[in-house]
């Protein structure tokens, strides 16, 4: 791979730096501004933590707990369903495999705004509205297809000879799966688990519509309500955005390498 730098690449890199660096800096800067100076000078202002101290109250902790429950619950459920499914689908051939794959792609591509209309009615009649379980189930259904599609290439990359060897040695199917296949697909499972967590953390459409009162909203839903309100309190909104992003920063710094390298493998193959 040619990795020389040159002046040409700088022409692309400089705007990208601004385009992605500035918004991040602006979120943080604004969250420390007093309301009166929001649209004032960029860097010369009296920093205050008022926005944070206003945001931190019992409501924030409830929202944080809801976010964590939803994101962790969804990640666990999605992996429980998607990991075996991706393994199975990577091995079966013929029309059943094609049908399964086709349906997964349709589910993955169907707009979430289309899913929510029947789900709202179904959850209403199954008494799942206004419950954390309902939101977790909806998020899980939303993300399983995506997870299976990303995981499948990782399982296809496991050499069949290894599994056959285990089989000949007398390993049962679950045993082969857990002690031969899983260790080899571990990176893929880790990457997909991280992605599912990030997506479930940010999901707000189901949360806003399935929870019937803002008292039980997760952080993302709270944020979506504040930003579409009239007369936005920008420092408060940005402080809430920063607080919502802190867990993402933690997950991101633990998994950056695997996201950077693993995403491309699963997305396109």
């Amino acid at each position: 791979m040619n990795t020389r730098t040159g002046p040409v690449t700088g022409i692309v890199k400089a705007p990208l730096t601004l385009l992605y660096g500035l918004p991040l800096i602006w979120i943080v800067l604004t969250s420390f501004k007093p309301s009166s100076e929001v649209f004032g000078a960029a860097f010369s202002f009296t920093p205050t933590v008022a926005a944070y101290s206003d945001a931190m109250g019992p409501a924030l902790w409830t929202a944080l707990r809801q976010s964590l429950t939803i994101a962790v619950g969804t990640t666990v459920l999605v992996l429980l369903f998607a990991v075996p499914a991706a393994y199975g689908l990577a091995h079966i051939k013929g029309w059943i495999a094609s049908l399964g794959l086709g349906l997964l792609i349709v589910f993955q591509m169907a707009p979430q705004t289309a899913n929510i209309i029947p789900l709202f009615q179904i959850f209403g009649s199954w008494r799942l509205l206004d419950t954390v379980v309902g939101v977790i189930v909806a998020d899980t259904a939303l993300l399983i297809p995506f997870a299976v599609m990303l995981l499948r290439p990782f399982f296809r990359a496991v050499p069949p000879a290894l599994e056959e060897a285990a089989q000949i040695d007398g390993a049962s199917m679950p045993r082969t799966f857990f002690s031969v296949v899983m260790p080899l697909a571990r990176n893929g499972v880790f990457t997909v688990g991280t992605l599912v967590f990030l997506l479930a953390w940010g999901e707000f459409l189901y949360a806003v519509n399935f929870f019937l009162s803002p008292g039980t909203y997760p952080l993302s839903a709270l944020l979506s309500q504040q930003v579409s309100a009239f007369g936005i309190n920008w420092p408060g909104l940005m402080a809430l955005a920063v607080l919502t992003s802190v867990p993402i920063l933690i997950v991101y710094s633990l998994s950056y390498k695997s996201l950077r390298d693993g995403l491309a493998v699963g997305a396109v193959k």
Partner: protein
Amino acid sequence: MPTPKTLAPRAAVGTASSRGARPRRRGRRPHWVFALPAAVFLAAFSLYPLVQLVRMSFSAVTSGTLNQAWQSVGLDNYLRATESGEMQAALMRTAAFVVVVTLSGMILGIAGAIALRTRGRWSSIVLAVMVFCWALPPVVNGSVWKFLLAKDGLVNSIALGLGLTDTAYPFLYDQTWALMSVAFVCSWAVIPFNVLVFRAALMQIDQEQFEAAALDGANRWQEVRHVMLPAVRPTTLVLLILTVVYGFRSFDYIYVMTYGGPGTATNTLPFLGFLQAFQRYDYGLGAATSVIAVALVLVLAAVYARSILKEEKE
């Protein structure tokens, strides 16, 4: 008695090998069992909802009758959706939105990948920052862009400061600007992903190919045109479909930045269906609009499935 001895361990494997004495080397184990739990779950929470959506689109459903027996109205919802002209207008907006997101997502994706494939601190930092932005919740990104594009926001301050304009640009308050502004933010959000995918394809190129190109006296641009672009071609179709679908389904930036407005300026087809159901409580009409949206997605899904299956056969 050597035969039973050699058979014994194979018999212990289970049903798969009990069908014959011939060793089944191609692994004819019932792998589909592994996919069963997910299949049942998706049948209940993905397939059944889609069936309900279609049924709902042929019925009169309002918030009052949502959980009662629905009265069938035939094609009435579809007729209402098209006669008002709402559907056609939303389709045009969706097309413009998708074109902007796809073009900028693909072009800046490949340009970014070529620029950021280089080793060095600047490239790695920019790539890391971009991936972080991509990982952030859309509500967070949408909030900050709404702030940056506000009347007194940073973008307008810079434009005014540089003398580009005398009055602030109405990024989110004007019928035409709003759709393009949201499309811009939407492509901003997808570019990091496209950069990663293109970058992975560029990393596969053999060093020798660059050396050969250099020997032939290729300049930078020819290197891009004759070495890099051919190398990313197989990836391009799949990524193109993914980007089109991303733009088409996108609702989060619309929800956060304009909520479909001003007026109906940012009502794309999927968002229009949502508003009809959850703002006007006309679930039948919303379902009809959404069925059209899903049908459009089916075409893309078919192309995507074909290209995946084709690639795997090779």
